[in-house]
């Protein structure tokens, strides 16, 4: 046994050999590594600890830098850990912190090793085990090692003590009850004069205060002292972080702290500290005018600095200010706008955000114009960043800032034509959304959609397909506003549509269906209605239509002017076109496309038969058929002409449950069935695919063909439904005529000199920041349909829940209970009172913590004695129960008003002096 092991250790590759071998790459990296791993697997089983540890080190290397799993070596790492030699220990700890996690099975075995090393006399060993603990501690480790950590918190070796302070963070997080033991010692360390210890403690508190600042308000006097006295920038930064969290909670504290912060801001030479001051002021002290002014002055220095880092941070600070003091941004807008063309992507994005913050309903058109021009010139990434922010700003709060929707719709069209545009989905949503919500803009919307559809080049760009699908839907749905439906039809059926994905293809076909029905309707039915809807007149009117006569009547009756005449001949051509374009699609592999194509072709067949025969000789027969055709067309047209409105997601909930329907009984199982169906994210409309909505109508079309009477019934049902639940329908019946004397969206003059100069934008924003009525506002803003609750911006109702209630609960317990003892009389001046309070506090601390230690020591020694599993488990169970109990209580207390919480405390500890009413000490007043 000793033979091979000796040979192993003599000829074992060291880590250096491994690295060299890897670099030479004689047999390729992967092959070399797998060979090395094989060796390691063998060597790591050796009984010789040196061999073992070297193997472990090599494994660490391969795991860390070449990403090979090393979890198989968990137990070996523990074996190496038991070595008395420091070098072995170090490797083992390194391996453990690389590979151990909460579910590592051997984690339980490490407790004693850690305990031994935590109590070692070698400070580096202690440091190693603390480091390990800070990385792998779970509930059990944290609980079992709390006493050791507690002892180390007052170690006289600074090297150890600062690490013990740092490890407390993880221990608290994993085992909140340890707060009761360690917290007071932690606070004591705040008094330490050694900057290293102080830095560590303040660091821990800044982390803790991040999670739940309120609990740490009682420590404000200590932090204040540190802020004023500190000479180290690191410490000052951390204290500022703490105050940024505390100040908003307690205005008296803010009053007190703002001056020292300004002092630091004036004096310090360190940029990091300066920036931290600025950030603290603009986030948490924004109501202190003079402080903000000072901070803004510093921000300006940052903005004009050569260093891109400072410039970026300056812009970043500016965007924090922007939410409360927009004037600051407009004061600095030259710099901001110049930064739009900076080389640095960070700076560009940050300045874009600021420009968007300046947007208001008065200048949105101009700013968008210039930004779109920027987008045309910039790289794809930034281009989409610009487009995305225009889209999101303009659509904010249901298009709050948009007054001129005609302009906005054409902007959407323009944006989708920008070569790098990848925002298709968003543009799609907005086009449809605006169509549904804003009635007055539909003619313009259809025009924009037509322009997009008709351009064959756009079909080749896959990013635009979503936009095109919206355009197709819009032009189908609102075809009555189209100037030339025939042209639209050609656009929808052009050969290049084969480039579209099937889902969008289906929308195209459906839209073509709608356009076709519209054409037929205008041609036959409306034309027919001139002479009265009576069946007898229909033949003549058909005849009339076929001669150019019909055109006039169409124009007279259609409320929009259709420029191209729809004649019988053009209808025949149209039907031919449909057949030609769609017959190949009957063999499509996509069911949706296939089905829709089939629907449409079936309809065309039906109509063609009728329409063609209607011009035949046999008068009686054709008359009858003509009547039938008209009937069918009218029915289908009626089905399509029901307006689709935005539907609130909560609409379903408003429908009262009819009497006698016991939903819970009958549909109880539904919940389990639907459990895994994801609901669409709230607060938006569920458009899904616009085609989904159409599905219903396409089904009803099928029915129409089969049985027109039945479908009649369904429309009447719909009408009835509408009558009953009119609340959920959009108001209708408004005149859709839009006068053409609408003022142009953008001043042509402005458009002319918009050569996207930074200077121009500056000028523009300067002009437009002054609120004045633009000529294009002379027309009132069109009605935007809103649905009460769901359209409201999702209010951030969610309170910042503190994740570790229990930690802060425990902290409060300790802090507030100790404050209770403070004599009120000694609160007159700051240093004195805090000092006195401190001392008292410490006295109690000692007593309490001693008790705790004793307690804990008892329990752990008990555990150490009996290793039998059953007992251990029982113990742990008990512990867990206790923990739950305290956890529950703490939750209760932290959710309750502090006063009630205190009364509980009082009940439990009757010896204590009656608590004060005010929770926050007035040291700082």
């Amino acid at each position, binding site marked *: 046994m000793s033979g091979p092991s000796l040979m192993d250790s003599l000829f074992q590759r060291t880590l250096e050999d491994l690295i060299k071998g890897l670099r030479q790459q004689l047999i390729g990296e992967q092959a070399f590594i797998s060979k090395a791993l094989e060796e390691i697997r063998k060597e790591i089983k050796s009984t010789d600890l040196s061999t073992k540890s070297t193997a472990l080190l090599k494994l660490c290397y391969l795991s860390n830098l070449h990403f090979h799993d090393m979890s198989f070596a968990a137990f070996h790492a523990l074996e190496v850990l038991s070595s008395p030699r420091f070098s072995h220990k170090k490797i083992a700890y390194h391996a453990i912190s690389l590979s151990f996690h909460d579910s590592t099975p051997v984690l339980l075995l490490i407790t004693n090793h850690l305990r031994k090393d935590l109590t070692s006399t070698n400070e580096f060993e202690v440091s190693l085990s603390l480091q390990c603990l800070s990385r*792998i501690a779970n509930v059990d480790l944290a609980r079992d090692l709390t006493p050791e950590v507690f002892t180390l918190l007052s170690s006289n070796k600074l090297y150890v003590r600062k690490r013990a302070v*740092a490890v407390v963070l993880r221990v608290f997080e994993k085992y909140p009850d340890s707060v009761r033991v360690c917290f007071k010692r932690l606070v004591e360390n705040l008094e330490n004069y050694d900057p290293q210890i102080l830095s560590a403690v303040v660091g821990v508190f800044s982390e803790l205060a991040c999670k739940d600042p309120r609990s740490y308000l009682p420590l404000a006097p200590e932090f204040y002292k540190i802020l004023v006295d500190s000479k180290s920038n690191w410490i000052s930064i951390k204290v500022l972080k703490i105050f940024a969290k505390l100040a908003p909670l307690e205005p008296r504290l803010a009053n007190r702290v703002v001056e020292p912060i300004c002092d630091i801001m004036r004096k310090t030479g360190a940029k990091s500290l300066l920036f931290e001051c600025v950030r603290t002021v603009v986030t948490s002290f924004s109501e202190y005018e003079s402080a903000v002014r000072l901070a803004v002055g510093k921000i300006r220095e940052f903005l004009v600095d050569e260093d891109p880092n400072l410039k970026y941070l300056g812009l970043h600070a500016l965007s924090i200010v922007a939410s409360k003091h927009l004037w600051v941004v407009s004061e600095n807008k030259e710099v901001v706008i110049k930064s739009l063309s900076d080389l640095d992507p960070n700076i560009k994005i940050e300045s874009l955000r600021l420009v968007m913050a300046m947007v208001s309903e008065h200048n949105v058109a101009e700013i968008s114009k210039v930004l779109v021009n920027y987008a045309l010139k910039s790289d794809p990434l930034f281009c989409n960043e610009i487009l995305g922010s225009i889209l999101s700003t303009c659509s904010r709060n249901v298009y709050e800032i948009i007054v001129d929707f005609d302009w906005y719709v054409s902007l959407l069209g323009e944006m989708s034509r920008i070569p790098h545009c990848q925002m298709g989905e968003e543009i799609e949503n907005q086009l449809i959304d605006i169509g549904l919500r804003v009635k007055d803009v539909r003619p313009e919307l259809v025009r924009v959609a037509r322009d997009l559809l008709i351009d064959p080049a756009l079909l080749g760009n896959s990013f635009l397909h979503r936009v095109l699908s919206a355009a197709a839907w819009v032009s189908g749905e609102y075809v009555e506003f189209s100037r030339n439906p025939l042209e639209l039809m050609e656009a929808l059926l052009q050969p290049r549509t084969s480039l579209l994905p099937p889902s969008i293809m289906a929308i195209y076909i459906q839209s073509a269906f709608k356009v076709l029905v519209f054409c037929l309707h205008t041609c036959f039915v409306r034309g027919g209605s001139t002479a009265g809807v009576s069946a007898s007149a229909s033949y003549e009117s058909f005849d009339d239509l076929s001669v150019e006569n019909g055109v006039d009547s169409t124009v007279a009756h259609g409320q929009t002017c259709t420029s191209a005449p729809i004649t019988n001949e053009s209808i025949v051509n149209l039907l031919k076109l449909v057949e030609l374009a769609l017959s190949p699609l009957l063999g499509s592999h996509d069911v949706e496309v296939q089905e829709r194509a089939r629907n449409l072709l079936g309809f065309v067949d039906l109509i063609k038969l009728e329409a063609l025969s209607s011009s035949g000789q046999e008068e009686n027969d054709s008359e009858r058929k003509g009547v039938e055709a008209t009937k069918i067309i009218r029915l289908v047209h009626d089905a399509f002409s029901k307006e689709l409105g935005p539907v609130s997601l909560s609409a379903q909930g408003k429908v009262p449950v009819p009497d006698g329907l016991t939903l819970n009984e009958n549909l109880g199982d539904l919940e389990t069935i639907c459990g895994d169906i994801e609901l669409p994210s709230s607060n938006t409309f569920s458009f899904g695919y616009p085609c989904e909505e159409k599905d219903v109508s396409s089904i009803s079309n099928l029915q129409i063909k089969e049985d027109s009477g039945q479908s009649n019934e369904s429309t009447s049902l719909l009408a009835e439904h509408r009558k009953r639940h009119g609340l959920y329908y959009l108001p209708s019946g408004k005149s859709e005529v839009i006068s053409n004397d609408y003022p142009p969206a953008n001043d042509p003059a402005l458009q002319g000199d918009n050569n996207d100069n930074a200077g121009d934008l500056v000028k523009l924003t300067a002009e437009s920041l002054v609120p004045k009525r633009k000529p294009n506002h002379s027309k009132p803003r069109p009605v935007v349909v809103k649905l009460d609750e769901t359209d409201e911006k999702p209010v951030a109702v969610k309170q910042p829940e503190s994740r570790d209630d229990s930690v802060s609960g425990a902290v409060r317990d300790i802090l507030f209970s100790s404050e209770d003892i403070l004599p009120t009389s000694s609160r007159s001046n700051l240093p004195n009172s805090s000092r006195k309070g401190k001392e008292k506090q410490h006295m109690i601390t000692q007593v309490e913590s001693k008790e705790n230690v004793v307690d804990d020591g008892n329990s752990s020694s008990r555990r150490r004695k009996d290793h039998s599993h059953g007992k251990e488990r029982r113990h742990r169970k008990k512990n867990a129960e206790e923990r739950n109990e305290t956890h529950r209580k703490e939750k209760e207390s932290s959710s309750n008003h502090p006063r009630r919480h205190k009364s509980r405390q009082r009940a439990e500890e009757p010896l204590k002096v009656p608590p004060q009413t005010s929770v926050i000490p007035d040291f700082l007043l």
Partner: protein
Amino acid sequence: MIKAVMVMNTQGKSRLAKFYEYLSVEKQQELIRGVFSVLCSRAENVSNFIDAESIFGLDSRLVYKHFATLYFVFVFDSSENELAMLDLIQVFVETLDKCFQNVCELDIVFNYSKIHTILDEMVFGGQVVETSSSEIMKAVEEISKCFLSPFLLSCVKMHVDDVRFSTFALFLIRINR
């Protein structure tokens, strides 16, 4: 809190990776690749910050510094100061420079353990515990004193010669420009 420290070369090879929360090796590799793909697309003389939220999740920031063939990367959350982290990178590199006299990539390649020791002296469980490079040096030396057995010492000496022999091809990192 610091979330991760990484050193990688300009080819994307990881030279040091330290994550202060447990992550599977696959995840680590993914993150490092993610960071590198952003780093290598950045021009010189631009700011040292990267939007890390897309890679590391919410509330994470990233600063990096580019020295010769190496990127030094620190990832942290909102409780750290960006400029202070940049300073910390500087401290780290300065310390390496003192330890290896004009540190180059190869020093970092061959001194895996030592690099980790240095970093651990600076950053402890995600928190900065030491910012003075001379203090760090002192501690590292102390540690190596109780570390080396005579046998290992000789090994290290041999290897040091080798390293010197092969450094000629590499760029030197000069910190004190």
